[in-house]
């Protein structure tokens, strides 16, 4: 009796796992399909660039404040922590290099992507989810207007264009924050701060790789936000869950992808 109950519970568990696996594989396929369609129907986004520009304003420009404020504090903390360690080895002048490399290579693209997912990604998911709930997407379909060309593609390209720009701004403002702490506050030499940075930050190995990372994160974060909105069940609870999933999946994907990209970049 107990044995058969145990068997039944194990079977139920296995069935649940199988169901979740199938659902996740289906979602991955549906997401890839949406990505493919967004690329195919991108012509309209460039032909009528004002549609994409409008979305760049909402995803990029409206994210500027959170990016600038975060970058400023991240840069300041980096300078404080970096100085604390570097001065033990008598190389506190290298603080500029440390701040710049940490920001340009890693923190700029990664933190920008995480903030983007929390600010712009959730907005995209909620907007599209609500458009679905209020039948706006169906209305568009019934007017013979393709929602992927009109709604998805402009938002996709807006995210892809905005992310590297936001990451660059993040790195620049972070360096400024680091400078303000290192030079006027701690008293590191001004010339040493900038000259060491200039000598040790490589354009292709550091800056270009950082831009490549932010481009990849732009594609991934925007696509996750778009798919979650498009796939959200048309209820208040469905939209709320989709918005949460956007942040969780985007954050984990960005952190995982960062490790993979960094590994490739260091090997190559």
């Amino acid at each position, binding site marked *: 009796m107990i044995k058969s109950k145990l068997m039944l519970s194990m079977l139920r568990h296995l069935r649940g796992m199988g169901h979740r696996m199938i659902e996740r594989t289906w979602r991955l396929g549906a997401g890839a399909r949406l990505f493919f369609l967004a690329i195919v129907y991108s012509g309209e986004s460039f032909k009528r660039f004002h549609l994409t520009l409008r979305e760049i304003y909402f995803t990029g420009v409206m994210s500027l404040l959170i990016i600038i404020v975060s970058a400023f504090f991240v840069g300041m903390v980096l300078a404080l922590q970096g100085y604390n360690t570097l001065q033990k080895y008598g190389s506190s002048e290298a603080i500029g290099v440390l701040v710049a490399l940490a920001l340009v290579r890693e923190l700029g693209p990664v933190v920008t992507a995480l903030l983007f997912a929390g600010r712009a990604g959730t907005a995209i998911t909620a907007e599209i989810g609500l458009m679905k709930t209020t*039948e*706006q997407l169906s209305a568009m*379909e019934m007017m013979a207007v393709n929602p992927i060309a009109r709604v998805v593609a402009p938002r996709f390209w807006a995210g892809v264009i905005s992310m590297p720009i936001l990451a660059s701004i993040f790195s620049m403002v972070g360096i400024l924050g680091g400078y303000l702490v290192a030079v006027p506050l701690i008293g590191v030499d001004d010339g040493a701060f900038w000259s060491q940075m200039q000598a040790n930050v490589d354009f292709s190995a550091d800056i270009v790789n950082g831009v490549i990372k932010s481009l990849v994160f732009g594609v991934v974060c925007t696509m996750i936000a778009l798919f979650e909105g498009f796939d959200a069940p048309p209820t208040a609870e469905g939209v709320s869950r989709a918005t949460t999933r956007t942040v969780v999946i985007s954050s984990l994907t960005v952190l995982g992808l960062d490790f993979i990209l960094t590994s490739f970049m260091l090997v190559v």
Partner: protein
Amino acid sequence: MTSNIVEIDNLSFGYKGRLLHKGINMVFPRGKVIAIMGGSGSGKTTLLRLIGGQIKPSHGEVRVDGDVVHKQDREGIYTLRRKMGMLFQHGALFTDLSVFDNVAFPMRELTDLPEAMIRDLVLMKLNAVGLRGAHQFMPAELSGGMARRVALARAIALDPAIIMYDEPFAGLDPISMGVICALIRSLNDALGATSIIVSHDVKETFLIADYVYFVANGEVAAEGTPDDLMQSKLPFVHQFVHGDKDGPVPFHYPAADYRSELLQASSGQKG
């Protein structure tokens, strides 16, 4: 050119193992106002979605202007949809666009008309629904009835041959209901279009419809002119038209015996 702009032929549709429509036949002659009526969940809105090609039938076919809808590719479906206008139950206005831009939306998306002409056309459409003066408002600033009228102006923006209405009277006050009712008839006649109304509001629908189909249990339970149906002795039609509490459509959803269920619950609590 066939005399019927829409024909539904032996149509069956189901999902998740449940058959919603079982061999439905309907015709929608040009220039007429045809109503599809039935209780909630009888699949009336699904019929509109089948006509619009948003879903495919399990069996049978829907023909719009002679073309079988579910056999069309995406381009073919879009070509057919350019002949249709649809008023959604809650309007489905684009919340980020003004009233003017909502009505201009299909013109800007589907035509190459100059902006000056679009402006004139939008004002004409809004004037037809009595809301020319509200063109600068955002959808959030409109009442339910006004939103429905703006959605109607948008649905007729490109002078469609078929106008579909999904529950156009639901949730409206009596004045707005009367206005929408009169607009459906007058716009249909002015545009020479065919209107398909899905509704369960008997009084308003019977006032403007030329012909009515009653859908129940996945089939066409009755059909005829509003006068025929008012006189109908069919139990279902009688109950629906006169709003009787009990009849072929029972008041209670099928359930276990009331007394034994209550006793079972209380004994379960004791245990």
